[in-house]
């Protein structure tokens, strides 16, 4: 992981090495010209912006108000609602998707007829856009014309015709389902890679010892996959906090704010109510959360649990 010098030090001050220094900076320049102003500076300035009362987009309307935006956040029940939705979403998706992906990986890691085909298809939703997926499922779940309710009618459940995206509780679980539908293939492949790294001998030994499948799963596979599982869970957590497209496309945060999450609220504060300062405070909360999750991941890697695929 660490940049190590590959050239002996005695060359360091030679002419050719100075020229190489220059080449290095020249080759880095195009990237940094974009990275610094459009990626790095914005991350810094969002904290700065969050310290202002700022209505509209012109600098003239900025008024310093210190930490007031953050105080306002703590009194904003919609902020807490969005945060609660975020956390509920993360927990549900992490648990369900990890278990589901692991189960499928255990099955599909083995070669059997059509197993490669299954794998290939399961991964396909990952390449689709969330806008396509969101609209597609909105059509499928449309109360009167949608396929899902039609199936319910056909199997004799004429009375069970939920308004999927119009019901606060259901809408939330629909988003959870659609998110997992799109994303589980990726987790599954990470698990498959982890499984393939387990040495063959362990399975032979288990067989010789007469271990039951259950024993093999619980005493060999699960413990050995601990690091992979952590990696998958962290990855899902980060992806979940990026939840935005699906909400905008499918529910717009509704019904009754049931599916509003931090990123969506931030967007609405900034671009619907043009409250840039307050929106930036939301962005800072998002930043802090992802920062904590990423640090956790780095800390794991730093402990020598780096997994290479």
């Amino acid at each position, binding site marked *: 992981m660490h940049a190590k010098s590959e050239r002996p030090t005695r060359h360091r001050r030679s002419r050719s090495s100075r020229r190489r220094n220059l080449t290095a900076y020249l080759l880095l320049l195009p990237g940094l010209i974009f990275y610094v102003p459009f990626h790095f500076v914005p991350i810094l300035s969002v904290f700065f912006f969050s310290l202002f009362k700022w209505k509209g987009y012109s600098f003239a309307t900025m008024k310093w108000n210190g930490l007031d935006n953050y105080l306002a956040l703590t009194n904003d029940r919609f902020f807490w609602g969005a945060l609660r939705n975020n956390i509920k979403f993360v927990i549900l998706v992490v648990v369900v998707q990890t278990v589901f992906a692991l189960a499928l990986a255990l099955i599909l890691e083995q070669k059997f007829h059509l197993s490669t085909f299954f794998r290939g*298809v399961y991964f396909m939703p990952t390449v689709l856009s969330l806008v396509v997926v969101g609209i597609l499922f909105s059509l499928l779940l449309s109360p009167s014309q949608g*396929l899902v309710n039609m199936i319910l009618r056909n199997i004799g459940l004429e009375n069970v015709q939920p308004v999927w995206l119009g019901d606060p509780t259901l809408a939330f679980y629909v988003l959870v389902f659609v998110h997992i539908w799109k994303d589980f293939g990726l987790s599954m492949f990470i698990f498959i890679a982890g499984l393939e790294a387990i040495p063959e001998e362990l399975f032979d030994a288990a067989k010789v010892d007469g271990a039951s499948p259950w024993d093999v799963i619980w005493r060999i596979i699960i413990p050995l996959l601990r690091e992979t599982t952590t990696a998958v869970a962290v990855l899902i957590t980060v992806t979940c906090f990026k939840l935005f497209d699906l909400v905008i496309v499918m529910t717009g945060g509704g019904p009754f704010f049931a599916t509003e999450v931090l990123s969506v609220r931030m967007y609405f504060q900034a671009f619907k109510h043009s409250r840039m300062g307050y929106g930036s405070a939301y962005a800072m909360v998002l930043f802090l959360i992802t920062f904590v999750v990423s640090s956790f991941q780095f800390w794991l890697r730093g402990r020598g649990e780096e997994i290479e695929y």
Partner: protein
Amino acid sequence: MRSKRLRKVLPLFLYYPLCLLVLVIVAYPVLWMLLGSLKETWEVLAHPFSLPLHPTLKNYAEAWQVAKFGRAFLNSVIVTVVSIAGILLISTMAGYVFAKLNFVGKTFLFYFWLAGMMVPPHVSLLPNFIIFDRLHLIDNYLSLFCIYFSSTSFGVFIMRSFFMSVPTEILEAARIDGCSEFGTFWRVALPLARGGLTVIAIFYFVFLWNDFMYPLTFLRNPALNTVSLALMAFRDIWAADWGPMLAALSMASLPPVIFYFFFQKQFIRGMTAGALKG
């Protein structure tokens, strides 16, 4: 090394029903979309499960022309192609530098650049909007290019690891033979790190083609709509017309899906790498 080893301990009989069930849940919505796009709207609603009785491309023509989806499709192609070209160029150059050259501030610059991956794009969205607003780049693809050219952390990281596997001796030999610094990079090292180009091209293709948040924020003029924006507009205006709607959805999905079925291995590799490193 994939083997039948788990079968030594796990019974087979449960696999097929479970795998088929998941297959239906995953593939059927997409299949329904593709088949429905070949039906007329009344047929989509009346016979949702059947194959198209009279397959027609009418929906595609209607979406492409009447709903101006063609314009959006071409816009997306332009944005995606230009952005990928720029990202590849930036990532290869920087990746090479970080892997093979020594200079003052190398470690700092590398981690400085890498840190960009740690922060979700939403966080910097508001300042980005302000910057482009001040530069009068709202409603201008330059804003998208600037933002995409700045999202190179993952590309740099991947190219660096590919260039690290190129033996330094080969580069030294090229230099001794009189190759210029740039020539060593372009003609000797780059061809040996081709694999990395595929990985990042695929990863960024999926990200750029499907991106929604940046176009939504930086573009207002419908003439500049990318595919994602056009789909949203389409849904609001043509809500009842499911035929053309499904055709538009299919057109938006076909480029990544077709590429995926041709380059499955590279896709899975690129996307898992992106997920784990990014």
